[in-house]
């Protein structure tokens, strides 16, 4: 009973924070220093935002990026699928911007699945999802060296439970920045 309640609360909280995915707006919070998409910043040494000063300190940048709300850091997937849905395109784009403007910044893509099926095969599915995000980032100009992927399969659920609500929140790739 308690557990169901806490899950419900968590869900409500998440939904409230995230808002309806369909209504998601691309609103960069002021803390995250990102470049406007489309800039041909090959050298990537300039940044118009105030957080450009954090350029040299990749760790600090990572920390600040990681402190972003979940909506910026997690991409969800449909069952048995590793295609990035349109609604998460922006996350990919922002991430690509973060990385291209901070070459010493690294991004770990952690793939996850829901708890159905066999564990080792789920590792593969999680990895496949992480790889999908990686490819998307590479397409957007991110350097290979800045990206790594790992998969937890069904080992690290975000939400425990055996129903679609839990499952849908576990089929995800988490973006974890690091120096």
């Amino acid at each position: 009973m308690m557990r169901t309640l806490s899950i419900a609360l968590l869900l409500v909280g998440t939904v409230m924070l995230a808002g309806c995915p369909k209504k998601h707006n691309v609103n960069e919070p002021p803390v995250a220093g990102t470049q406007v998409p489309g800039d041909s910043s090959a050298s990537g040494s300039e940044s118009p935002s105030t957080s450009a000063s954090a350029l040299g300190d990749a760790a600090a940048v990572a920390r600040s990026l990681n402190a972003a709300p979940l909506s910026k850091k997690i991409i969800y997937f449909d069952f048995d699928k590793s295609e990035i849905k349109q609604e998460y395109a922006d996350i990919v784009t922002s991430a690509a911007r973060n990385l291209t403007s901070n070459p010493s910044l690294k991004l770990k893509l952690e793939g996850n699945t829901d708890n159905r099926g066999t564990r080792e095969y789920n590792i593969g599915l999680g990895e496949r999802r992480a790889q999908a995000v990686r490819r998307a980032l590479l397409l957007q100009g991110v350097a290979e060296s800045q990206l790594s992927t790992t998969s937890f399969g069904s080992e690290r659920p975000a939400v425990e439970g055996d129903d679609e609500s839990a499952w849908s929140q576990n089929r995800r790739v988490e973006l974890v920045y690091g120096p």
Partner: protein
Amino acid sequence: MKKHCTLALLALTLWGVNCRAEFVVEVTRGQTQAIPIAIVPFSSSDVSAASFDVAQMINDDLARSGRFKTMDVKDMIEQPHAGADIAFDDWRRLNDDYIVVGSLQMVSADHYIITYELYNVLTRQRLLGFQINANRPGLRLASHQIADAVFEKILGIRGAFSTRIAYISALGHVPNKTYELVIADADGENPRVVTQSKEPLMSPAWSPDGSKLAYVSFEDRLSTIYVQNIKSGERQRVSAHAGVNQAPAWSPDGRKLALTLSSRDGNLDVYILDLDTQALTRITDDPGIDTEPQWSKDGLSLYFTSDRAGGPQIYKIGVKPGDKPRRLTFQGSYNARPRISPDESQMSFVTQEEGGYRIATMDLRGHGDVQVLTKGPADVSPSYAPNGAVIIYAARDHGRGVLALVSADGHVQQRLVASEGELQEPAWAPFPAN
């Protein structure tokens, strides 16, 4: 026949031979019911001996196997302790087929003697009669060994009651879960933590001699394969490549591990690692997910899961370079995680049907007949007992991860529930090498 009879009659008139054809009754079916057996409480030499109930342990083991229907102590009209005291007609009247009687004697604080006998009540024949010497901590193992002996004598299959299992126990809740790799007796008693971590532990695998466990640890948030010596606790990191290091499987000679590694583009494939030379041999190379390898008994092939055809299916490939994989499963869209029975007569795996995941078996010697053993909805991680007669697997019971048993023919089902935590990924140890 009749003509012969008549001729024979004429020829053998003096002998009066009855030439009727021999009377034969055809038996084409039987019952798959449990064999009725009575384990009579053993006599004990004193209070100390009385505090350990040998008969109850034997009773529980045999009952848990599902192959025996054990008699309630309260239904026993008498309690003999030796063969000479058994009134067979009485036990026959109780519809009992077999009986075990015995005694537990304390010789000193550290020396006990268990005496036991097994009788066939129908033929009144004594089938077993032994004495076992044990110290106090050894009484559990001795009782399991008696259950093994009775099981094997009657069923002709070696008992696995005195073996061990390993499993992962996950305690707490996200994000503060802790994970333990645990070894316990086959009945779940005597659990001992082998290693623990704040990050997930996966895929425990017993070395063929039962002295080591290989497993996957995410302790640095990266998957790494370790091999740990159970007695000493010493462990060795054997695979820490970039990306995925998963699904370790020991070769029959214990010198190699088949495992799953990812290439740079994240594609999972099966490899073989030579533990002595550290040489790595690639076995599969295709864009699909190839994982969950298991060795054949002769060490010349690997069974594995691959979704190269769309959904996961089970394949078999020779370890020699250039061998092409052969698909084994064709029923349904999801067949994964093969485990091979010790005599390689049968393969157990996870199959998905009607939205649920179930344990199934495939006959490897005949026509590949598939039998679905369990009802799901989330039955995974099958592992064979070393006698091939029963499979332990992970199931979910009211939102909790539990372990369960099913006989290899699907007739018997049991649940093993833990006192706390979620139990997953059981692995049954091989018979002790002796």
